């Protein structure tokens, strides 16, 4: 059966025999690990309404007898897993199959959504809700870093964007609830405007091609996804509070949901306040943050065949940028680089946010409608409207620090019509038409000539994917075509100021193919290849002016072509005797006409001195790397996790390393889960360590400062759960950078000016009912 039956989510209700007897009903079930499908013995099952507990046997099986007809809530927990709750209405003997998240690190999109819906040869990894909640003091990109192969490009601890397989910004698409995030992705100091709390899970698709996801990606895609609202008529929700010592930060999130009579709804609200962070030796003055977000999700079934959902989210933030990182020219930069302690470092902690700072609002409305003609054919309609408003404030003369130095407003509209059909031979066809319209406007309030011009962009696209499963073999192939039109209006930088208009058209296409082969239960392999074009973005075509952050004049290049990428990826998943799991992935990507900023042999004289000039140019580049994940459980309550990722990026034409490529890194953790202490369950202690190598590929003349040394960070987490009658409290305490190590990270722009953050103690409290 197709998606209609999926409403019951992870629970598959199967009547065993159809006789209904009052108060003599049996509820039996099987508990399995979501990541591996292995039964989980000795799991605790608690039937709230009856106050009854049971333990699954060695095959993961459990049983309740003599139940009356009615509605029940089942709470299931297992050592080392995220506990779950399920609602079931029973009127006859019932069998349920329940999936727990025992190997959270092995989750991917296919596991999360079920094979029939999202089966794909694309390789993905997922961060679960529990993980998001436990890391609520971090932003989206930092949470994604737990996925092997993902790093963050930062501008201090408050602003970061994901780097996947060495690519970031315009080259990685981020989908918020199925709608491509549309903001000012071009800026290295512009973080994606998404509250991770709105998501039930976050996924990274390490793709060779992102056919169905949009035209902006060169392979990899980040998915921020909400689950469907539970089919539970009662009000459920959670309150999550976290405090972190470094920056005296507070994060509060409340989420409520109910399958109401008229529609199912879910509301999530987040508040965040944080002051100056501290490196081991000094405060990082003006690195505070304030954030307030809300999301509302509505789901309405008009009939069994017609399902609709409406989603609204609003993200609002104000972030301070390290005061000492604000520089006027190259002399200032070289003065700042040598400093023991950054300029303008205050000796006291403060929540105050002054210039330089960023103020960003992002709102999204999404409407989705699915029509099921029958079990094999679905028509989907999707609309997403976004408004992005970004203001950046610099230190300015004459009381102008409250007037933004950059003020941009972007509207975007996305429409998609998609059609999926299962063929009689077992194949599945997914096709769609997409239309995207972006309107980007500079607010003249700045009193400064804009860095990027006003523009409007239209993209019309069509895609086609064919998938088929044949025994142990699953394969897919597909193609996509985009027609992109930019209409740009620039202001000249010579006098008199005049407005000029330009139009660019790009015809781009992509192809992708992949196979997945299951040799045995313990060995699965994946091979995928994609050819993809990416049209240059407006900043690459038309940037003009001084980029404060890098102390350089950036010039766009109107003659740029589309980048052409070929990416090949192979991965294998092994597991041995249900104890050792290994995931290994290797990839190679070749990008013809790779767009990058090339320093010119020219210094441009201004009244603030001479600035180096950077011009957008094209070269041929290659990226290759490896992601390795290892999980070993010598005993049921002991788990060792190991991750390694390496990336190598090279400009083939100039025979130079690409800049902003993450250094190779290692992560390892030991988790020891121990027995319940009365009502305290899921008790665990975990020690983790991260080692980041020195980025040695960069030559001295490629940067103002050589990449920092390798560093090692240690952390520890202690956690427990308190199961109450109808609710649950989860408590965890973690310490990051336990040794208060002084370090700088290559991908953090603030490394020119200051050390990274020191020790941080995080207390996390979660109440759910």
């Amino acid at each position, binding site marked *: 059966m197709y998606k209609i039956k999926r409403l019951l989510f992870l629970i598959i209700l199967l009547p065993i025999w159809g006789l209904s007897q009052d108060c003599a009903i049996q509820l039996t079930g099987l508990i399995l690990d979501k990541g591996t499908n292995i039964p989980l013995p000795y799991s605790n099952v608690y039937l709230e309404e009856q106050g009854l507990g049971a333990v699954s046997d060695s095959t993961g099986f459990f049983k309740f007898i003599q139940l009356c007809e009615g509605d029940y809530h089942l709470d299931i927990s297992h050592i080392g897993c995220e506990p779950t709750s399920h609602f079931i209405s029973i009127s006859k003997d019932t069998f349920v199959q329940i999936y727990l998240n025992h190997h959270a690190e092995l989750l991917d999109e296919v596991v999360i959504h079920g094979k029939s819906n999202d089966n794909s040869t694309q390789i993905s990894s997922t961060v679960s809700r529990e993980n998001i909640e436990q890391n609520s003091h971090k932003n989206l990109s930092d949470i994604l870093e737990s996925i092997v192969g993902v790093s963050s490009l930062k501008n201090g601890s408050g602003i970061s964007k994901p780097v996947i397989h060495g690519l970031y910004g315009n080259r990685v698409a981020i989908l918020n609830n199925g709608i491509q995030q549309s903001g000012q992705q071009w800026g290295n100091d512009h973080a994606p405007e998404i509250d991770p709390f709105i998501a039930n899970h976050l996924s990274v698709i390490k793709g060779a091609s992102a056919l169905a996801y949009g035209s902006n990606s060169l392979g990899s895609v980040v998915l921020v996804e909400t689950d469907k609202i539970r089919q539970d008529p009662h009000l459920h929700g959670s309150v999550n509070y976290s405090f972190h010592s470094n920056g005296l930060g507070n994060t509060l999130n409340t989420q409520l949901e109910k399958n109401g009579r008229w529609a199912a709804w879910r509301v999530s609200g987040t508040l965040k306040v944080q002051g100056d962070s501290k490196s081991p030796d000094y405060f990082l003055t003006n690195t505070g943050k304030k954030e307030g977000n809300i999301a509302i999700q509505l789901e309405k079934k008009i*009939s069994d065949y017609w399902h609709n959902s409406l989603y609204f989210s609003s993200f609002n933030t104000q972030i301070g940028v390290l005061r000492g990182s604000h520089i006027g020219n190259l002399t200032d930069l070289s003065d700042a680089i040598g400093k023991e302690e950054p*300029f*303008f470092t205050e000796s006291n902690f403060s929540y105050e946010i002054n210039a330089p700072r960023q103020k960003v609002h992002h709102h999204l*409305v999404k409407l989705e409608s699915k029509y099921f003609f029958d079990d094999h054919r679905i028509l989907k309609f999707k*609309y997403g409207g976004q408004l992005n408003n970004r203001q950046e404030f610099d*230190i300015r003369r004459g009381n102008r620090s409250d007037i933004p130095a950059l003020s941009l407003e972007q509207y975007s*509209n996305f429409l998609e019509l998609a059609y999926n059909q299962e063929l009689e031979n077992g194949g599945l066809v997914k096709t769609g038409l997409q239309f995207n319209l972006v309107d980007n406007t500079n607010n003249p309030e700045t009193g*400064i000539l804009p860095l990027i011009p006003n523009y409007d962009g239209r993209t019309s696209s069509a895609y086609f994917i064919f998938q088929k499963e044949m025994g142990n073999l699953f394969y897919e192939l597909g193609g996509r075509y985009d027609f992109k039109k930019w209409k740009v209006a620039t202001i*000249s930088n010579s006098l008199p100021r005049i407005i000029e208009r330009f139009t660019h058209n790009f015809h781009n296409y992509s192809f992708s193919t992949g196979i997945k082969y299951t040799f045995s239960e313990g060995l699965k392999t994946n091979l995928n290849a994609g050819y993809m074009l990416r049209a240059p973005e407006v900043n690459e075509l038309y940037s003009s*002016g001084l980029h404060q952050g890098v102390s350089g004049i950036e010039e766009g290049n109107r003659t740029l072509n589309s980048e052409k990428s070929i990416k090949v990826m192979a991965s294998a998943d092994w597991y041995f005797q249900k104890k050792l799991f290994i995931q290994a992935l290797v990839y190679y990507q070749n990008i013809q006409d790779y767009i990058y900023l090339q320093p010119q042999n020219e210094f441009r004289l201004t009244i603030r001195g001479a600035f180096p000039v950077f011009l957008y140019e094209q070269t041929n580049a290659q990226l290759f790397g490896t992601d390795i994940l290892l999980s070993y459980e010598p005993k049921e309550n002991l788990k060792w996790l190991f991750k390694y990722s390496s990336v190598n990026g090279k400009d083939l034409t100039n025979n130079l390393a690409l800049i902003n490529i993450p250094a190779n890194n290692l992560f390892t953790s030991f988790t020891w889960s121990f027995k319940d202490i009365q009502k305290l369950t899921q008790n665990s202690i975990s020690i983790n360590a991260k080692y980041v190598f020195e980025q040695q590929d960069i030559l001295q003349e490629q940067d103002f400062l050589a990449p920092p040394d390798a560093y090692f960070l240690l952390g520890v987490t202690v956690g427990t759960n308190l199961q109450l009658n109808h609710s649950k409290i989860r408590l965890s305490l973690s310490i990051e950078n336990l040794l208060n190590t002084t370090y700088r990270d290559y991908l953090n722009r603030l490394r020119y000016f200051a050390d990274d953050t020191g020790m941080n103690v995080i207390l996390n409290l979660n109440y759910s009912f």
Partner: protein
Amino acid sequence: MNTSKYKFLFILIPTFFILASCGDDDPVIPVEEEVITTLNYTLTPVSGGDVVVLTFQDLDGDGGNAPTISGGILSTNTIYQGSIELLNESEMPVEDITEEIRTEDLEHQFFFNSTVNGLSVTYSDTDPNGNPVGLTNSITTTDAASGTLTVILRHQPDKSASGVKEGDITNAGGETDIEVQFDINVQ
């Protein structure tokens, strides 16, 4: 169930947003009030003689046409009274930025770095805290020599840092608002 009102919603919401975002208007050219296009450094010999004016002018701001810079010829063994004028000539009427600096003198200081042998610059003005600003100053020349004189204006320097009051920029910090270099010939 009445489904027509839902269908209506599906058409209405996207249409609203698409209409709201359409437009082909000209971008508004910002009024660049903050820009400093011109620096005039007037040097008047104390005991009479020719007035020398060092000028840096970049009318269209960063980018566009290159700035024009004119240095000067100074006499040996002479004391000059120096006064700096800053203008924004890209706007009409021309805006006098000197006033702005004077109003915010606590937050500004000029620094003078010279490679001319025997040439020295001293401050002649102070802010309310008694620290130097540099809008007025004095230049003393000795023997014949040539080199460059760099005039730097720092915004929010740490005037209490060691050496800053004496005109040493090393520990000043802050952001550079101006950094221009003039060729100087003492003869």
